[in-house]
C-alpha cells in the first residue's frame, strides 16, 4: 500500500468530517440530527487513527499538518461543555453571588478603603476651603458649582435626560469595568481607581455641602447614591478578588488559581455593572426630576433596603450552610 493510495482512499472521509465540523459550528445549541452526530464521532475517531498512522509512517508533512488541524477542529466540537439553564443562572445570581460578595473579605476591604477616603476627602474639604480646589482643580470645581447653582430644571421628560442617561451608562459603568479589569495586576489597578474615585467624590461632597448650593446638590445626589456607591465598591472588590487569587493561591499554581477564581469575580463585576446601569437610570430620570424631595429620598431608601436585603439573604444562607455542616 502506497502513501498516495491511503491518502486518496481516505480523503473523502476527511472532507466529510470537515463538513461535519462546519455544520456543528453553525448549529450550536440547537437540536441535532443524532445520526449525523454519530457519523461525526465515528469519522473523528477514524481521523484520529489516520493521524496516528500518518505520523508513524512519516506521511508527507502537508498531510500530517492537515490531519492535525482537522482532528483539533473536530475535537473542539466533540468535547464541549454547554449547560446553560436560566434556572441555574437565576439561582446563581440570587443565592451564590450575594453569598460570595458577603463572605469575601475583598468586598469589605474595598468598602473600608472607599469609606475612609470618601470620608477623609469630605471632612478635609469641609474644614479647609482650599482643599477641594487642590484635589479636583479650579476649573472642574467651578463647573460642578455651576451645575448645582440652580435647582434642577422643571418640565417632564426631556431629551437632555435621555442623553445624560446614555452618558452615565457609558462613563460610569465603563469606569466600573475598568476598575474590575485593573484588579488583575495584583489588585493594584482596582485599588487605584477606587481610591481616586473615593477621594474625588468625597472632596466634591464635602465642598458642595459647605457651598451655598448645598440643598440642590444634596437633592440631586440622594436618589442614585446607594446603587452607584455600592457598584463602585463591588467593582473594586471583584478586581481585588481577581488580583488576590494570584497572591494567595490556596494550593494551586498561580495560573490555575486565577483561572478558578475569575468566574466568581466576573459574576460580582456583572452585578456591579447592573447596579451602575440602574443608578444611571435613576440619576438621569429621577434625580433631576421636579418631584418632591421626599420621593427622591424614598427612592434612595428603597434601593438601599433592596440592596441590603439582597446581600443579607446571601449572608443568611451562608450561616444556614454553616450549621448544616
Amino acid at each position, binding site marked *: 500500500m502506497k502513501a498516495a493510495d491511503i491518502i486518496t482512499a481516505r480523503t473523502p472521509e476527511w472532507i466529510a468530517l470537515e463538513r461535519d465540523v462546519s455544520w456543528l459550528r453553525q448549529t450550536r445549541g440547537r437540536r441535532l440530527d443524532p445520526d449525523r452526530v454519530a457519523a461525526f464521532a465515528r469519522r473523528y475517531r477514524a481521523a484520529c487513527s489516520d493521524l496516528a498512522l500518518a505520523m508513524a509512517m512519516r506521511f*508527507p508533512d502537508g498531510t500530517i499538518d492537515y490531519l*492535525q488541524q482537522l482532528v483539533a477542529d473536530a475535537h473542539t466540537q466533540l468535547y464541549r461543555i454547554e449547560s446553560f439553564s436560566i434556572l441555574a443562572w437565576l439561582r446563581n445570581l440570587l443565592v451564590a453571588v450575594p453569598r460570595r460578595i458577603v463572605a469575601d473579605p475583598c468586598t469589605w476591604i474595598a468598602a473600608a478603603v472607599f469609606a475612609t477616603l470618601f470620608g477623609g476627602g469630605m471632612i478635609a474639604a469641609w474644614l479647609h476651603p482650599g482643599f477641594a480646589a487642590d484635589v479636583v482643580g479650579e476649573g472642574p470645581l467651578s463647573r460642578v458649582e455651576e451645575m448645582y447653582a440652580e435647582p434642577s430644571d422643571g418640565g417632564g421628560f426631556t431629551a437632555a435626560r435621555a*442623553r445624560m442617561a446614555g452618558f452615565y*451608562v457609558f462613563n460610569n459603568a465603563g469606569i466600573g469595568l475598568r476598575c474590575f479589569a485593573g484588579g*488583575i495586576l495584583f489588585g493594584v489597578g482596582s485599588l487605584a481607581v477606587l481610591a481616586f474615585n473615593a477621594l474625588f467624590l468625597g472632596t466634591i461632597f464635602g465642598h458642595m455641602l459647605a457651598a451655598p448650593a448645598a440643598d440642590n446638590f444634596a437633592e440631586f445626589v440622594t436618589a442614585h447614591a446607594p446603587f452607584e456607591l455600592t457598584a463602585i465598591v463591588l467593582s473594586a472588590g471583584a478586581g481585588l478578588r481577581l488580583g488576590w487569587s494570584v497572591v494567595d493561591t490556596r494550593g494551586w499554581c498561580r495560573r490555575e488559581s486565577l483561572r478558578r477564581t475569575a468566574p466568581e469575580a466576573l459574576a460580582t463585576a456583572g452585578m456591579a455593572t447592573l447596579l451602575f446601569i440602574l443608578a444611571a437610570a435613576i440619576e438621569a430620570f429621577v434625580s433631576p426630576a421636579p418631584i418632591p424631595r421626599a420621593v427622591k429620598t424614598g427612592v434612595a431608601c428603597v434601593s438601599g433596603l433592596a440592596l441590603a436585603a439582597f446581600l443579607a439573604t446571601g449572608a443568611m444562607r451562608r450561616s444556614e450552610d454553616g450549621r448544616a455542616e
Partner: protein
Amino acid sequence: MASIDSTDVARPLDTTLVVVSPENIAFQFRLAGPAVRGVAFVLDALLILALFAGVVFALGLLGVVAEAFVGLFLVALFFVWWGYGAACEVIANGRTAGKAVLGLRVVGQTGLSINPAQAILRNLLRAVDVAPPFFPGVVSMACTSRLQRLGDLAAGTIVVLDRSRQAPRPPRVASTSPVAVPPGFRVEPRLMEALAAYVSRRADLSPARRRELAGIAAVRLCAAWGQLPPEDPDAVVCGLYERAIAADAGQEP
C-alpha cells in the same frame, strides 16, 4: 522492517500546543502570536468605529440629532464596546470579524470550545491588556509558553491559527523505475523524515532543482550500495520512500 519511532524526533521548538485527546492521540494547535492578534484587534476596533461613525453620519444626514438619540447611541456604544468581542466569540465559535479575517480562533486551553463566561472575561480584561505604556498583555504573552495575555490566563483560553485548509494532495511520485535497493537496507528515521519532506515538496520544484536536491541523498546512497550514480535521482528517492512506506505497512515489496 524499518521500525520508525515517532518519539525520537524532538518536538519542534515552536509556537504549538500539544493536546492529548481521550482517543490517546496527540495533536497540535498552532498558537497565534502578538503581531497577528494585534492586527485582528485593530481590525475589530476599526470595524466598531466605522459602524458608529456610519450611524452618526446617517443620523446627521437625516437631521435627527435629537438628544434622546445621543443617549441611546451612548448606551449602544457602551454595550458594543465592551460586549462586541464576547458576543462574536460566543456566536461565531471563538472568532470576531478581525479574527476571522486573519484566520484566528479562541479555544479553551484544553482544546475545547469556549463558553460565554470565558468569552466575557477575556474581553473585559482586554482593557488592561492593551493599556499603555507597558501593554501588560504583550508582556504576558512573552512570558507564557501558550502566548496568553492576562485575559486569556484568567479565562483559561488560547488563540490558535485556524487558516482555511486545503485537502492534502496525495504525494505525486515519479513513475518509479525500479530501484535496486539492497535487501536488508533499513531506512533510518531521520532519512525517512527527509524523504517525506522531499516527496511532499517535489511537486513545487523545477526538474533541475529536483535533480539537485534528490541528488544529495541519491548519489551517496548509490555509492554506499556500490552502484553507479543514478540517472534520475528523483526516481531513486521517490522509489525509496514508497518502498519504506510499504515496508512499514507490513507489505514487503
